[in-house]
């Protein structure tokens, strides 16, 4: 498994796990979710950065050459294809959010819905990268 594929796995697993905790607590936070979400979101982002940086350092230790090397043409192509798919997911999600936003839900719900769409798009991007790395392995 290449270094880039490992980092895609790190991104996929860490984002899925950490944001699952955030959205779980957001759903079950009741009427006081406004302030709790800001603190919870900050904690989530910090946790995500720490986990991703720590795991990437560990992976880099085992393959230092690959970690230092720039992306080659195949890796760039995989990255572009995955980003294109994620963009389609993001655009579709935003279109749905705009449609359902017409029902006038609270503003915090809207922010969380948009964040959810963004997170799902990012997870989709990592998943697409992994699939393409596996296909051409």
């Amino acid at each position, binding site marked *: 498994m*290449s270094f*880039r*594929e490992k980092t895609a796995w790190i991104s996929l697993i860490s984002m899925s796990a950490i944001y699952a905790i955030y959205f779980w607590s957001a759903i079950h936070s009741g009427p006081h979710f406004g302030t709790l979400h800001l603190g919870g979101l900050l904690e989530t982002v910090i946790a995500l950065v720490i986990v991703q940086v720590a795991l990437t350092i560990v992976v880099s230790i085992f393959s230092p050459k*690959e970690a230092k*090397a720039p992306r*080659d*043409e*195949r*890796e760039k192509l995989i990255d572009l294809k995955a980003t294109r798919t994620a963009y389609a997911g993001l655009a579709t999600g935003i279109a749905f959010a705009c449609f359902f936003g017409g029902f006038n839900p609270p503003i915090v719900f809207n922010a969380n819905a948009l964040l959810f769409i963004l997170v799902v798009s990012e997870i989709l991007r990592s998943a697409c990268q992994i699939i393409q*790395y596996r*296909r*051409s*392995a």
Partner: protein
Amino acid sequence: MATIRNEIRRLRFEHGEMTQQELAEKINVTRQTVNAIELGKYSPSLEAAFRIAAVFGKPLESVFHYCEDE
């Protein structure tokens, strides 16, 4: 469906059993990319194809073949 076949595996063998890693380092790509090219799962850019041919000292058409299946 058209496919691009190549002779990289044979040429590596003929060049002192050059490893995929050694070839990858010579053409500035990862070993996984060399493996993908060799297996026909990834078609390299024209630039990478020329670099591969240059490593083996062969013309491009001796390394890569364009096959149009009927």
